[in-house]
């Protein structure tokens, strides 16, 4: 049974928080266990949904925070005006995908996968705070290794990178692989004649 004081205390602290607050911090501030905080938050998520509130309690980037309900976006946008002014380019998204799934990863490794140099795009992503240096390759050269940041998770509304769909889901299906293989045939499939007719 959750102590009576926990729920409103959590609501009050979350109301003045500017970043997602981890359950551990909430537990410490309210003087309870992490398990109890998780229970309280999950109840609040359900209550707000059941009451059809205009706000939701979201679990993002390893913490909880108040957000507007997605359905209210048109009204909120009238007030905030800013909107998502900065759409991510296809190149930025593909680079982010590589970093997200292969982190920690070096710039060279990303370039190899994308087939282009990624210096410019990585600089932009770093400036925007979506990726950051997380380590150094222990091998020779000590290349800088990159990973995604909490800002990236916030941008995607994810709790952790573990919440991304497994990469295996995106492996091209047989039809695509076959098309690629066909496109890169070394010899004709119906290679029974030397001089090809037609």
């Amino acid at each position, binding site marked *: 049974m959750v102590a009576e004081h926990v729920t409103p205390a959590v609501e009050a602290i979350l*109301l*003045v*928080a*500017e*970043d997602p607050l981890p359950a551990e911090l909430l537990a410490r501030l309210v003087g309870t266990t992490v398990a109890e905080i998780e229970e309280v938050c999950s109840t609040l998520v359900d209550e707000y949904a059941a009451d059809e509130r205009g*706000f*939701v309690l979201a679990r993002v980037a390893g913490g909880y*925070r*108040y*957000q*507007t*309900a*997605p359905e209210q*976006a048109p009204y909120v*946008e*009238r007030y*905030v*005006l*800013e*909107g*998502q*002014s900065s759409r*991510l380019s*296809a190149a930025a*998204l*593909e680079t*982010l*995908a*590589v970093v*997200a*799934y292969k982190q920690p990863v070096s710039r060279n490794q990303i370039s*190899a*996968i*994308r*087939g*282009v*140099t990624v210096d410019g795009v990585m600089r932009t992503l770093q400036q925007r705070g979506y990726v950051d240096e997380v380590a150094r390759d222990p091998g020779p050269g000590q290349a800088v290794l990159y990973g995604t940041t909490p800002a990236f998770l916030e*941008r*995607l*509304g994810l709790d952790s990178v573990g919440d*991304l*769909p497994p*990469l295996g889901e*995106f*492996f*091209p299906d047989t039809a*695509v*692989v076959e*098309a*690629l293989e*066909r*496109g*890169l*045939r*070394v*010899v*004709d499939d119906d*290679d029974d004649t030397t*001089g*090809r007719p037609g």
Partner: protein
Amino acid sequence: MPYEVHTPVFDGPFDLLLHLILREQVELYEVDLSGIVDSYLVELERMEQFDLEVATEFLLIAATLVELKVRRLLPEDREVDVDDEFGLWEERDLLLARLIECKTFKDAALVLRHLSAEASRSYARRVGPIEDRFIGLAPDLLRRVTPPDLRDAFLRATAPRPVVRVDLSHITPLKVTVAEAVEEMLDELPRVGRVTFRDLTADLVDRIEVVVRFLAVLELFKQGALDIEQARSFGDINIVWIGDPDASADSLVVDAYEG
């Protein structure tokens, strides 16, 4: 009529190759060699800054493709060097593996786009403590702020924001269709025989009506019902009826234009 200009710009050789093989369903060996090379050269030229690494990659892949194709076209040589052939297979497999990996992450990126679009519909509360009694408690708020942070904040604050409401007042709804305009002209033109475009549109008030009338002229010209002469640029257009004197709207098939 809305129209789009499709000029795909490829982010790299894999992008282009994937496009060539998958989206256009082109059998690369059916395309002539110069066609493949041309596509690569076009992309190279389109690159805003000449990036040696990307250019090299483009060249390498183009060369691999050319080699694969040459190998396919030449009569089978039983004496072919096994090492050469093995090398070619290896290169081809490497290329295939890299293409598959690239495609995997391209598709993963689509999911990221979707997630980010969904997440952007929900705005976070980032207000912080607003009541006086709490504001006084917090330590120095500028502790971690640097002058460049301040400049960035100013640039963010003054960056042009997307327009919220689209003003549609300048768009006039179409009152007349091209078919109607054709019908009107069929009433008059066969009888008059010859008219200038200025006269033809003299009684029209809205610019859009003139445009529609012009489209109708083009339509009848396309059908071979009239001839158009224009003596000099921006001069008046003479319209001469050369079709059947008893033409009616029913005898002409007029494309519907969607306004």
